[in-house]
């Protein structure tokens, strides 16, 4: 009779004080949850609270005055603020489109097996690993209108020297080139991961059926790698929207304040002018946009997941 008891049962009796799954789950979640809550909850509550105050961190003795939503209305009624949003939008659109077209094409080309591919691939990843501040200074050095190497190449092609960083329109493209240089590798990495995840027999079947390489790319490869590509797109979109390191190093926001992104302007309000209340309101607006964007993408992703 004793032997008939399933092994699991006796074992469970033998270790009566085994920690329950509930406890393990709680213990495992605790550190991550504690750190995330500490680092997010406190600043967020403060952010919402201070965004309704007329307050400067430099002048705490002066006290704070509750002004309701005036920080928001003041910011949103200022044309220079809207200009920053338009400029940031242009930058985000340009850089993400460039990174995506180049990144997906290069990742697709890297699907071919050839000698030394791993080494080339790793070298192609290098820009992403550099420190953003160094990347900014490096491109500023190369874009210098007097002695920069970019203008040397331009003169080799028979054009005159271009004032890359002194004219707002040019500076936008200069930073796009630098940003795309740094972050296209990230798109390549994720797109490669996506392409490798597609079962090879699907492509083989399409090939046997006589599908052209172009058809296979647009009808098989692209749709099947969509979930990862969407995530890559979302991450790049948000990072580009947050971008301020490159502008800090390359243009310093100039000429004037023509190449300040939203994040750059926020940094200025918070840490040059020290308008803490107004900066908080600005940060809330930025966060609303970012959370909105990501909710749209999460919805797209779950839809995509269901279709599969």
């Amino acid at each position, binding site marked *: 009779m004793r032997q008939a008891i399933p092994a699991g049962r006796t074992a469970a009796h033998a270790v009566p004080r085994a920690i329950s799954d509930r406890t393990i789950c709680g213990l495992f979640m605790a550190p991550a949850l504690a750190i995330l809550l500490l680092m997010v909850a406190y600043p967020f509550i403060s952010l919402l609270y201070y965004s309704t105050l007329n307050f400067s961190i430099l002048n705490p003795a002066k006290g704070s005055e509750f002004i309701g939503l005036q920080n928001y209305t003041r910011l949103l009624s200022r044309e220079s603020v809207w200009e920053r949003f338009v400029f940031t939008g242009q930058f985000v659109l340009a850089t993400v489109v460039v990174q995506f077209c180049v990144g997906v094409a290069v990742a697709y*080309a890297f699907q071919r097996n050839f000698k030394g591919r791993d080494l080339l691939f790793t070298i192609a990843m290098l820009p992403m690993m550099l420190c953003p501040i*160094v990347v900014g200074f*490096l491109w500023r050095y190369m874009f210098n209108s007097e002695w920069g190497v970019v203008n*040397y190449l331009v003169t080799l092609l028979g054009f005159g020297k271009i004032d890359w960083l002194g004219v707002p329109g040019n500076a936008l493209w200069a930073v796009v080139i630098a940003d795309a240089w740094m972050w296209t590798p990230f798109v390549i*990495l994720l797109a490669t*991961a*996506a392409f490798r995840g597609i079962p090879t027999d699907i492509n083989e079947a399409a090939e046997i059926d006589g599908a052209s390489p172009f058809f296979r790319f647009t009808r098989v490869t692209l749709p099947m790698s969509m979930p990862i590509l969407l995530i890559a797109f979302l991450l790049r979109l948000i990072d580009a929207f947050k971008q301020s390191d490159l502008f800090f190093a390359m243009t310093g926001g100039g000429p004037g304040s023509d190449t300040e992104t939203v994040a750059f302007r926020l940094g200025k309000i918070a840490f040059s002018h020290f308008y803490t209340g107004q900066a908080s309101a600005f940060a809330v607006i930025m966060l609303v946009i970012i959370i909105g964007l990501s909710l749209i993408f999460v919805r797209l992703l779950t839809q995509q997941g269901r279709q599969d």
Partner: protein
Amino acid sequence: MPFHRQPILIPAIVIGIYMIYACGPLLWLVLSSLKDRQELFSWPPSLFFTPDLSGYRMVFGIGEAAETATALGLTDALINSVVISVSGTVLAVAFGTLAGYACSRFAFPGRDDFMFFALSTRMIPPVAVLVFYHVMFSRLGLSDTRTGLILVVTFINLGLATWIMKGFFDGVPEEIENIALVNGYTRLYAFWNLVLPMVRGGIAATAGFCFIFAWNEFAFSTILATTQAKTLPVKISSATGATGIEWAQICAAGVVLVIPVAIFFWLIRKYLLMGMTFGVLGRSRT
């Protein structure tokens, strides 16, 4: 093999053009780090010249170059950077692994909300919360300390680590723990001795990503580390002296900074790709 019959020409051209774009500036970074003051500003820019190591000497504060007012002397900052990014990476990976396991195996209430919350921490613009970190840190006595920056670095990577690790755990069949439980082992034993060894690659990939972001972190450090705890990127950004920007020194610092990351990346390159796929496949399965 599906790609065999395609012409190699077009992929070769695509990769070739891209490599010129990717490598040109890298080459220029290395060349500029070896140029002396005259070569740096020569027109036309020179490809061949006698290398000059003063940029590197300034970075490490060796010899005469260390006397220059704008020399960085990065040794202190190097120690700070190593301590902060290694501790931050270890903590983020450890906590992310635990949380990733819990999210993969237990359907506790609010799990999906937690996952979105964890991801959304990556979306916060640093400037938006920096003022309050500043206040919070001075209250906790963490201003300008390595401990404070370790906390920040752990925080910025924790969400990503949780996501990638959850993906890897999703790839390990749950039967493994079930069999172990039936045979009288505890879940902790099964987790530590059976499941963890199976996701070693995932841990390596997660550590790789976390280390890149920790090592290069600038936005938080530049405000929170004022003197004592300055890391390498913060120190580099201050290399703009009265005599203008020390280009050779900045480029040399860039080269020095990228070497450990590049070696690390090369070692874990196989797992990186795996990590990204698993992360997403895991997501669409839930």
